[in-house]
């Protein structure tokens, strides 16, 4: 692996004169690319400069400046810092920006999301439909001038709560029916001819032609949203030729609550407990990513002891998540609940630790900007030591004995649902999904944060990219996490746990920051724009569950319908994070 070029020496403005200018706004970094040259720029970036991995695509609505901005973060899969580039356009309705799907197919869902929530039309996108809101929804909710039902004020805290808190239940204040607003000219009592599913089925139908040119009868099957094996309210519309999958489209957003809009009304600290609810199995990791992003803006680093506690908790979270993922993959393969409950037992003991440390088993809300909320209580370190050195290694071996050689799992896993290394990068997959396809890319090594550069561990990697490898890589990662926890338990120093005085209103200087961590499900990123006020101007979550699903369709095409559930299980999604 060659040493990655530091981003400072990368002078894109000199390389692409006239196309690219440095972003000189205070607190900002990266490059502003001319809209017309975006495709050429991205192609050169990928092919000539080696930034083959498009991590995040999102938009920002700069309402006071009358501008909309699309922000891209690209990285090299060989590691090193990334490059962040933007396209600025005048704020109109709709805003048009060329689509990058032809160069980075991983942008597909993210561009659909930006279209859905911000009204940025990506020209040349193969299937630009809404993704999180429903098809006949009017408006783009993340725009700054859009207001939700039950709207109270632009920013929290709301003035009615104190000192004249006249308590009123939200449902009394705006009764059902009064809390809706309709676009001009729309009468809810009149029946419209609009079929919300038409666009979806049309998008699927374009693949109906077979190679031989024969018109065959294809079958359209909807799996979910209420299907026990979709891990939540998730729907897949599948086109079948016999039992073989010809094409499929995931349909999501059933659990959408516009986490990002809520985040932009909240103060910075208020967002911390909300991040717990993204991927509710890995709340410590979510806290970690958000804390990193805000700390980048504030320019503070936590004290040593806090860093060790953070890493210890994040790795315990990874173990808890992976045993869950393995257990539920087995459920999806039809081994109902015995392997799942075997795996779950160890998670219970980990959750006991979280409960003692943070006060809650799942919604931890433990990280603060500049440290953690409280020190480890007495006896917790001993508990972690017992688990990391004694019980968990034993139990992971036992679980592997139970599953790894099982002929049914091997028959259903090996060679099924293959995602090649090239596709894994192209579709911007991350986490175990990417590493099981033979790409040893791990944010903890590629761009180390916290104290990971000092810790000894290997990046787990498996070559085949099939269901079986995606299961086995989780065992490998649990073992590496145990190594990390063992080191943190041995090395944890005494000292303070907060770099700054705990405060409920933090001063965050204006600027942008992208904080990313290697969450258990993949790369979890938080893109935050601050204007110096108490709330973030833009708060975007790069959700691994959501983006990993971009590769779901390509993985399934050509497989049997019965394997769809297993492939979905091997991706390991959580809908709380996927739908946000």
């Amino acid at each position, binding site marked *: 692996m060659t040493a990655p070029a530091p981003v400072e020496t990368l002078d894109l403005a000199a390389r692409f004169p006239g196309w690219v200018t440095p972003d000189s706004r205070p607190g900002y970094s990266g490059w502003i690319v001319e809209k017309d040259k975006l495709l050429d720029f991205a192609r050169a970036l990928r092919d000539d400069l080696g930034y083959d991995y498009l991590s995040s695509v999102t938009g920002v609505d700069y309402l006071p400046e009358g501008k909309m901005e699309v922000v891209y973060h690209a990285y090299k899969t060989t590691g090193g810092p990334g490059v962040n580039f933007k396209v600025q356009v005048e704020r109109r309705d709709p805003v048009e920006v060329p689509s990058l799907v032809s160069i980075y197919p991983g942008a597909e869902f993210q561009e659909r999301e930006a279209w859905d929530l911000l009204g940025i039309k990506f020209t040349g996108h193969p299937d630009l439909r809404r993704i999180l809101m429903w098809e006949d929804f009017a408006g783009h909710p993340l725009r700054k001038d859009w207001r939700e039902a039950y709207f109270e004020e632009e920013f929290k805290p709301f003035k009615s*709560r104190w000192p004249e808190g006249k308590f009123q239940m939200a449902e009394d204040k705006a009764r059902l029916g009064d809390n809706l607003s309709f676009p001009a000219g729309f009468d809810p009592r009149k029946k419209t001819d609009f079929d919300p599913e038409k666009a979806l089925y049309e998008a699927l139908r374009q693949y109906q032609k077979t190679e031989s040119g024969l018109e065959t009868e294809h079958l359209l099957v909807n799996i979910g949203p209420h299907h026990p094996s979709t891990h939540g309210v998730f729907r897949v519309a599948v086109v079948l030729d016999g039992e073989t999958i010809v094409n499929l489209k995931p349909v999501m957003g059933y659990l959408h609550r516009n986490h990002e809009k809520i985040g932009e009304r909240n103060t910075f*600290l208020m967002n911390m*407990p909300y991040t717990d609810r993204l991927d509710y199995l890995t709340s410590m990791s979510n806290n970690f990513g958000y804390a990193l992003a805000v700390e980048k803006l504030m320019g503070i680093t936590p004290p040593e002891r806090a860093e060790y506690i953070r890493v210890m908790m994040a790795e315990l979270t990874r173990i808890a998540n992976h045993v869950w993922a393995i257990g539920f993959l087995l459920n999806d393969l039809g081994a109902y609940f015995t392997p799942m409950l*075997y795996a779950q037992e160890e998670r219970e003991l980990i959750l006991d630790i979280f*409960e003692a440390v943070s006060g*809650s088993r799942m919604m931890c*809300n433990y990280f603060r900007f500049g440290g953690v909320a409280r020190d480890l209580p007495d006896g917790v370190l001993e508990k972690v030591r*017992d688990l990391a050195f004694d*019980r968990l290694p034993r139990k992971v071996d036992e679980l592997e004995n139970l599953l790894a050689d099982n002929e*049914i799992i091997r028959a259903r896993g090996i060679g099924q649902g293959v995602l090649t290394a090239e596709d894994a990068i192209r579709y911007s997959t991350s986490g175990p999904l990417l590493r099981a396809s033979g790409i040893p890319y791990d944010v903890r090594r590629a761009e180390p944060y916290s104290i990971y550069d000092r810790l000894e561990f290997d990046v787990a990697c498996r070559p085949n990219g099939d269901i079986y490898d995606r299961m086995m890589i989780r065992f490998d990662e649990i073992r590496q996490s145990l190594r990390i926890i063992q080191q943190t338990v041995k090395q944890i120093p005494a000292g303070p746990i907060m770099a700054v005085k705990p405060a409920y209103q933090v001063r965050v200087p204006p600027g942008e920051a992208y904080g990313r961590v290697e969450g258990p499900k993949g790369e979890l990123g938080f893109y935050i724009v601050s204007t110096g006020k108490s709330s973030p101007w833009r708060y975007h979550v790069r959700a691994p569950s959501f983006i990993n699903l971009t590769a779901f369709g390509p993985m399934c095409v050509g497989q049997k319908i019965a394997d769809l559930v297993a492939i979905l299980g091997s991706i390991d999604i959580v809908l709380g994070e996927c739908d946000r």
Partner: protein
Amino acid sequence: MSEMYGKGILKGLGVTLKRFWDTYWEDAVWLFRQVTRGERRYRSPEGIAHRASKNTRGIFTVQYPEEKLPVPEEFRFVPFLVYEEGPNGEKVMRCTSCGICSRVCPPQCIWIVRTTDPETGRPIPDPAEFYIDIDICMNCGLCAEFCPFDAIKMDHDYELASFGRSVYDKEKLAKPVSYYESIRPLNAARENAARAAKEAARLAASAKPEA
């Protein structure tokens, strides 16, 4: 592929068989302990502690609601207001209605009415009304973390299921200091010491000019 088909399945079955054996072996071990030491595996503190430790073997289900895991001190579920008992048994709220909890609350479920002196119009440090919409509360604990008067704390009672909407008023939220000290002894001792030190510093500062 393994050379003998079915070997992997047999290996897995070995694991389940071992689990089965462990569960009953544990029962036998605890039966022995019950006879010799009077310790029981189920429905006893020592049994629950064993099942929550690294040495537990076999099935270690805690039979809720007959058995409950002891909650750690930091456990948090729904806030309550701490009051001190006055000399005549009246409830003296620690809360001064400063409003920090209602401003830090992420889902904005705390509503406070501040008392004002009817004659001077100046605020009195005592809440006239205090509501928490329990159904909206997300149990994050930020109110308790940032209260400067140790007046709002997180409770340990998690069995709050109800048929209707739960909005707690001041009456329902108030709990005595003794209760707080019983559920969070270490935190309470730490806070009492800090308050005593502050008070001593204040007295020393006010005593100085006179001396």
